[in-house]
């Protein structure tokens, strides 16, 4: 390499300017090597200049390279035929590489002849004493980029035999640079402790850095994107003064998941094809709920109404309420918390939130799994109304960077009034649903023992949907579960929801 570099510099010194192909011919090395040497000289600074010129050139195919190295198929075959006695055709076909092409070409060139009636099967004899391998010679010229000496027929033949193809070659026009020199100083790559100690760094030349290359990745762990988004939502709730609810309870009774929320026992959501029921433990005891008459009040409001409601007018069964399920929403925990709140001697206005898993026995697709995370916020205070609900939802979504909101009347069994939350999606150019909300029904709150003038406003959304949008994930299985690509986990940016 160093020899080549000095040779090149000497040549440039003599000729002032030249092309890389010219150097190639002159030094008798492959073009690629010349380019390498030029780059290496360029790394020293402005010793030379090299202007790239892209041209279309013939280049060797893989087969062409093989022929250039080892000879054409016909020449190889010819060499394999012993002078005089020749050899059986079948043997040649087996032992010589590319024998079929080589055989037909050699035959056409009249280098060999075939005696079909020879004893022991067709036999091949040399027809000339020696051959000159013109094909190989031509390919060597192509490799050296000296194409001038090729005739048009030769080019055509090489192409036809797929030994060469048209390729793009970058040829450099090389000239002396402002700092031209014939001797290249040895360059240091690293600044070492020793250099600092001896002070030798002051006299050394350092190799230029390639700032285009990537650095080495630090060896570190990573947090899961969905849980990074969860942390952001928790932060928002905490900033807004909400208190986190204890939602670490996946198994819930139908009572707290449905009945306490005034969801009738014949409601379709309570069907086996929407909800996971359990065989173990199949049902729970509702002793505590029974003890203070709460269970009886829930039964009454479902069957006959009360608290200003006419109720659902059906035969409410405790056995149905005892059935254990995997909770279908975290609102089951909200109900427990509100019930506890009602048990305090004096009602305290409260803001609660939770983000945790819920389970639905639904059909699975690219955006639905049997388990997902529900984000829920609620405020319990005297005289809260729809305006407060919309106001706090606006505040919450502003913190997420979502500004254009509108509200659509909706139906939820346990809230009235109910509102679906829509936001304008700039990318899709339309309004999309981003959450659900409402004011909890009096039939839910009053049997718990909350004062009549207390309202509870609440809203909810899924954690997965905003995360998928944030991280550009289309299939939920690429986000959650064992099939997740950990590379996705490691390259994900930090989560800033308002960015």
């Amino acid at each position, binding site marked *: 390499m160093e020899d080549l570099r000095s040779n090149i510099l000497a040549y440039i010194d003599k000729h002032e300017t030249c092309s890389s192909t010219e150097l190639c011919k002159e030094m008798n090395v492959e073009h690629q090597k010349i380019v390498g040497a030029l780059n290496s000289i360029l790394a020293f600074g402005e010793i030379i200049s090299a202007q790239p010129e892209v041209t279309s050139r013939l280049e060797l195919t893989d087969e062409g390279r093989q022929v250039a190295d080892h000879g054409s198929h016909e020449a190889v075959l010819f060499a394999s035929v012993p002078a005089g006695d020749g050899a059986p055709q079948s043997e040649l076909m087996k032992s010589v590489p590319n024998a079929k092409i080589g055989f037909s070409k050699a035959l056409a060139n009249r280098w060999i002849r075939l005696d079909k009636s020879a004893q022991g099967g067709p036999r091949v004899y040399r027809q000339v004493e020696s051959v000159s391998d013109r094909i190989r010679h031509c390919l060597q010229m192509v490799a050296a980029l000296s194409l001038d000496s090729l005739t048009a027929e030769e080019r055509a033949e090489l192409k036809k035999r797929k030994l060469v193809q048209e390729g793009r070659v970058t040829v450099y026009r090389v000239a002396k640079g402002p700092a031209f020199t014939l001797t290249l100083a040895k360059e240091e790559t690293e600044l070492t402790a020793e250099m600092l100690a001896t002070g030798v760094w002051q006299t050394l030349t350092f190799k230029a850095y390639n700032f285009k290359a990537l650095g080495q990745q630090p*060896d*570190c*762990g*990573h*947090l899961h994107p*969905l*849980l990074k988004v969860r*942390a952001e939502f*928790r932060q928002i709730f*905490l900033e807004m003064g909400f*208190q*986190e*609810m204890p939602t*670490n*309870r996946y*198994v819930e009774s139908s009572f707290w998941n449905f009945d306490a929320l005034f969801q009738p026992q*014949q409601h379709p959501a309570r069907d*086996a094809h929407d909800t*996971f*029921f*359990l*065989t*173990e*433990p199949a049902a729970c*005891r509702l002793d505590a709920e029974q003890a203070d008459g709460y269970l009886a009040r829930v039964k009454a409001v479902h069957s006959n*109404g009360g*608290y*200003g409601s*006419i109720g659902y007018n059906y035969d409410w069964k405790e056995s149905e309420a005892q059935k*254990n399920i*995997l909770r279908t929403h975290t609102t089951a925990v909200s109900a427990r918390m509100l019930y506890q709140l009602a048990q305090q001697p004096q009602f305290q*206005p*409260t803001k609660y939130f939770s983000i945790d*898993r819920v389970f639905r026995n639904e*059909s699975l697709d690219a955006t639905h*799994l*049997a*388990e997902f995370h529900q984000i829920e916020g609620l405020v319990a*205070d005297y*005289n809260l*109304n*729809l*305006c407060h609900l*919309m*106001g706090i939802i606006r*505040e919450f979504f502003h913190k997420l960077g979502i500004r254009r909101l*509108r509200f*659509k*009347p*909706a139906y939820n069994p346990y809230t009235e*009034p109910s509102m679906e939350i829509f936001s304008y999606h700039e990318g899709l150019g339309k309004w999309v649903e981003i959450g659900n909300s409402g004011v909890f029904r*009096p039939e839910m709150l009053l049997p718990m023992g909350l004062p009549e003038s207390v309202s509870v406003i609440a809203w909810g959304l899924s954690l997965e949907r905003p995360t998928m949008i944030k991280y550009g994930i289309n299939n939920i299985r690429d*986000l959650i*579960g*064992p099939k*997740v690509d*950990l*590379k996705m*986990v*490691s390259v994900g940016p930090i989560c800033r929801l308002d960015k």
Partner: protein
Amino acid sequence: MPVVQIEKAALCQCLNRKDFTDDEVDELCFEFGLELDEVTSEREMLAKEQGDAKAAQMGDQLSDAVIYKIEVPANRYDLLCVEGLSRALMVFQSLAQPPLYKAVQPAAGMKQMRVAPSTAQIRPYVVCAMLRNLSFTPASYKSFIDLQDKLHQTICRQRSLVAIGTHDFDTLTGPFLYEALPPSDIVFKPLNQTKEFSAVELMQLYSGESHLKAYLPIIRDSPVYPVIKDANGVVLSMPPIINGDHSKITLNTKNVFIEATATDAHKASVVLDTLVCAFSQYCSEQFTVEAVQVNYPDGRASIYPSLAYRQVDIQVDYLRKGVGRSDSQLTIDEICNRLTRMCLVAKATSDATVSVTVPPTRHDVLHPCDVLEDLAIAIGYNNLEMSLPPTLCTGKQQPLNSLTDKLRLEVAFAGFTECLTFALCSEKDISERLRLPLDSLPAVRIANPKTLEFQVARTSLLPGILKTVHSNRSLPLPLKLFEIQDVVYKSTDSSGSAVNSRQLAAVYYGKSSGFELIHGLMDRIMQVLGVPVDQYKLSATEVATYFTGRCANVLYKGSSVGTIGVLHPETLAQFDLTLPASAFVFDVEKFL
């Protein structure tokens, strides 16, 4: 949510708006709490279902008229048909007054339906009504059938609670009898069949029919099946399966006799009200229905349809506060006007109260809060003035979640990457694949899993992490993974409940077992948890998941909080892993 199809032309006509654009319809639906799901046509719908070629081939048989598919709220049975939906929108747009529905008893006496005691064994209730001098068009006839179908799918819970039968009254002779008979004693020609079948044969015949076989289990195993007959013994229907062919309604039917049998009397009455309210508009005397008397074995007589109008007195203050408007911003007159647009006719009874009349179409109104919602809809949700709740509170985290988040950071700082796997898994995942006997595990089992992946709630985080290792085994080694999540255990007491347990699990997977690294992570966690060295140690034990002699209990203050070790080669094989791995699992809640 149920979807109703309505032709654009029909909607435009009833809303008196020739130039309605799709966007305006969308906007109107949004404001009213409906969702314009799709704008399509008969041809487009067929093309979507059976391909463009088929739709083109049908040529003129298909209409290109624009059809709106509109989603209606699940509790608004009155909006389940074009008739109800368009009327509600007309009233909402102040283009019509809410109709007054009437049940009249004919001078010549009501038609009678006698209920036999035998029905108590299977389906004890029946309600009836008669629509007189009705003229069907092909469109309204189709809508009549569709509404019955939609009611069957929703409030009737697949006909289990209520089943509707409609009949051409002029082919029948009253009085009627509702009884329950042994299946072999019921013989009749069912709808669209050419010969008679016994009920036994019918159950056989319909077991292969996709649209009927779902209803068979409702009565199949009962010793008696319900049947309704007329005075001459003609079978009207064998609810909830099929009607008789004799009394079937056609486009030319003038007098429609409706019966609905049920296991829930209230729902039957709601269904009957809904059906007659929507279709009495086609009777010569609009919105008027002929009542029918049902005589129960105990001598009780009930008259249907009930078409009851209920008065609710509501404090004006409650309504104003609910939408955040003062006396001057929302007068009593305006309240009444707006409620009337929601078919809730209201009038002021004093300065402080309004009396709201809930019509028989609005069985969804249970409480004044339902009236409040309708008032807010009539004002327009998006016209309300938003304000923040005055509630002042201090934010507070659950200590367990706060600790979890801090630990997640520490473990990630230590070079481990977080997984997030499912809380549900197969029995095999937590038992056989971890080399543990299933009956030794306090696993919560799911009764109705759709696939093997949802048989139990996980009792360990390891299977999820090891599956994640498997899916990522082509990444550069070693893989260092962790997860802090809940597992679920069945309670040991008699409460019949279950508890979550917050666990931290970590796995090292590489060319060597890397036990010292997993051990080092455990040491580090104890360090950041501030556990003094003398309160934490490992003590050798044997757990089948781990390799013999390479497993220890993690002891904290003398009691076990988890296990650590080199995973057993057969555990690895269970997860198709070919390289060694070490792991630990421990209970985070012990460190709260």
